[in-house]
């Protein structure tokens, strides 16, 4: 068993970065995720593992530091919260175009604009539908516990390097700020410079005489080549969508009414399932772990087993619900419920919404 600790979600994320063998973290403070860089600066990982930590002048600079270091083959990470993540979108689009591996976290707060510092899940569209310019995708993992804030950093780096893609840990102010017991995974040693040079021949690590130079770029002025590059990217996303779907089911075997949720809303909806069962309603929970790729096929298959209705529970005005509708395609009723703008719904409110919008209809 790994080391047990009582930690905040943001601290678990930071500790996991050190343990995952990250080479660098570049970040900029923003509530509610400033504990990430505070923890790292206090922990001095440069003494523990040689990991670099730098407070950048902006979120824009931080993601571009990630771009540079990732292009040079290193394991790099950043994190921010909604307004800061909006600033990173340019860099993320370049990272997608140049096919660079990195992990970043968004500890989501209410918006739009400067919004509020309270929890929200209103960045679903930005996270799963592109965010920056151009046709691209990124893997999105949604932790529902402090444990997963830690575990998904390790998983995130594995996936990032497997596919040369950005992996987003889409958290929220609840998961980032709350304290829970976490079992920390055993530290993975950082790769040596020689290992990086050998393992990542695409990385800009200095061109050996007589060998071809490496270029990290997202530019090609020849549109035909750019179309080919886009085909390549789409093929990669297809592979990811076939192999990296992650979700979890609670009480779905005989369920007629299913809550669909991720992150802190999934924790709340799990309680709503218990309340529903106590009232004799056959309810279940479909918890999304990967938001991209979206477990649409699995949802459709489950729907055919006699599900009468789905309630998408998210702290937004209704974003994920669109993907649920696309997935079940009229097989059963679909509705949305969620408080938003920084307000967290209660399990009772969620159950009431199921009764009113789905069962009562």
């Amino acid at each position, binding site marked *: 068993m790994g080391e047990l600790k009582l930690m905040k979600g943001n601290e678990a994320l930071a500790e996991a970065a050190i343990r995952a063998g990250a080479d*660098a973290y570049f970040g900029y403070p923003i509530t509610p995720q400033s504990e990430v860089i505070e923890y790292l600066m206090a922990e001095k990982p440069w003494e523990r593992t040689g990991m670099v930590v730098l407070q950048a*002048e902006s979120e*824009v600079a931080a993601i*571009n530091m990630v771009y540079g*270091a990732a292009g040079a083959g290193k394991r790099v990470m950043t994190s921010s919260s909604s307004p800061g993540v909006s600033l990173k979108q340019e860099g993320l689009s370049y990272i997608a175009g140049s096919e660079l591996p990195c992990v970043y976290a968004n500890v989501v707060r209410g918006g739009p604009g400067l919004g509020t510092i309270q929890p929200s899940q209103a960045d679903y569209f930005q996270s799963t539908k592109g965010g920056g310019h151009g046709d691209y995708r990124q893997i999105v993992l949604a932790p529902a516990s402090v444990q997963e804030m830690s575990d998904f950093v390790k998983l995130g780096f594995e996936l990032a390097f497997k596919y040369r893609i950005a992996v987003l840990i889409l958290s929220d102010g609840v998961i980032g700020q709350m304290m829970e017991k976490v079992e920390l995974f055993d530290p993975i040693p950082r790769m040596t410079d020689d290992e990086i040079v050998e393992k990542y021949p695409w990385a800009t690590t*200095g*061109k050996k005489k007589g060998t071809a130079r490496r*270029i990290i*770029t997202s*530019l090609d002025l020849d549109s035909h080549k750019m179309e080919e590059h886009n085909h390549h990217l789409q093929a990669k996303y297809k592979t990811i969508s076939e192999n990296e779907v992650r979700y979890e089911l609670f009480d779905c075997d005989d369920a007629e009414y299913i809550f669909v949720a991720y992150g802190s809303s999934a924790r709340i909806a799990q309680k709503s399932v218990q309340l529903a069962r106590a009232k004799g309603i056959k309810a279940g929970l479909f918890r999304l772990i990967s938001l991209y790729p979206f477990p649409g096929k699995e949802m459709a298959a489950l729907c055919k087993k006699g599900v009468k209705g789905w309630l998408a529970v998210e702290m937004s005005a209704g974003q994920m619900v669109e993907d649920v509708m696309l997935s079940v395609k009229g097989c059963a009723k679909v509705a949305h419920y969620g408080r938003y703008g920084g307000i967290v719904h209660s399990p009772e409110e969620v159950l009431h919404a199921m009764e009113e919008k789905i069962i009562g209809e």
Partner: protein
Amino acid sequence: MATVTLQEIIKPENLVYKKTDLMTDKALSYCPGCGHGTAHRITMEVLEELGMEENTIGVAPVGCSVLAYEFMNIDMTQAAHGRAPAVATGIKRVWPNKIVFTYQGDGDLAAIGTAETIHACNRGEKIVIIFVNNGIYGMTGGQMAPTTLPGMKSSTSPYGREVEMMGNPLKMTELVAQLPGTYFVSRQAVHTPTAVRRAKKAIRKAFENQRDNKPGLSFVEIVSNCNSGWKMTPTDANKWMEDNMFPFYPLGDIKMDGQLLK
């Protein structure tokens, strides 16, 4: 006297000059008479002469020199507009023993990338910045730059830069020289053989500083013409540059070994 054939002349012992191997054979995308080609060449010659080929990572900007990676025969990363100093910071921090440099134009470095430039300089990142200032946005067709001179015409200041409305040109090089993080700051040109020799000397000094792990960033501005953007012939553009750009952007070393020169 026997006739000497061309084949007899082309042999290693007669070689007096050759293009550095660190420039590719790809035809430059720059307009004839533009300073970028010379600035590229002397930068690559310095890297070759200092034996840095295998240890260097360059960062290309957005602007006319966006395709610098097509011409510089080393490992290169192409950065988003203005972000090159942040990208270079990321690389240098995780590969502290590598030589890292950015090559940027005036729009990239002194407008959209002002924050990244100032902060990389102020943190004293141990990188080299080569800043080509031609007072105009060449790539997009001759719009006003942060360094466009008062009264100077461009496609977005067609009647001349009116300072009251459009603001003053920014002397970025003097500005970064004031920051404690810069170790060496110099302004040069590449329009005459003398100027090229001086510019190359400054670029060599900048890379030597990084090689020797000197405390701070080395920054070399090259004032260049943009004859097509300025709508002049290359020779007229060089003359105009001497008469108008150099008085506003005087050439010479500004900071040496961390000390501002009087």
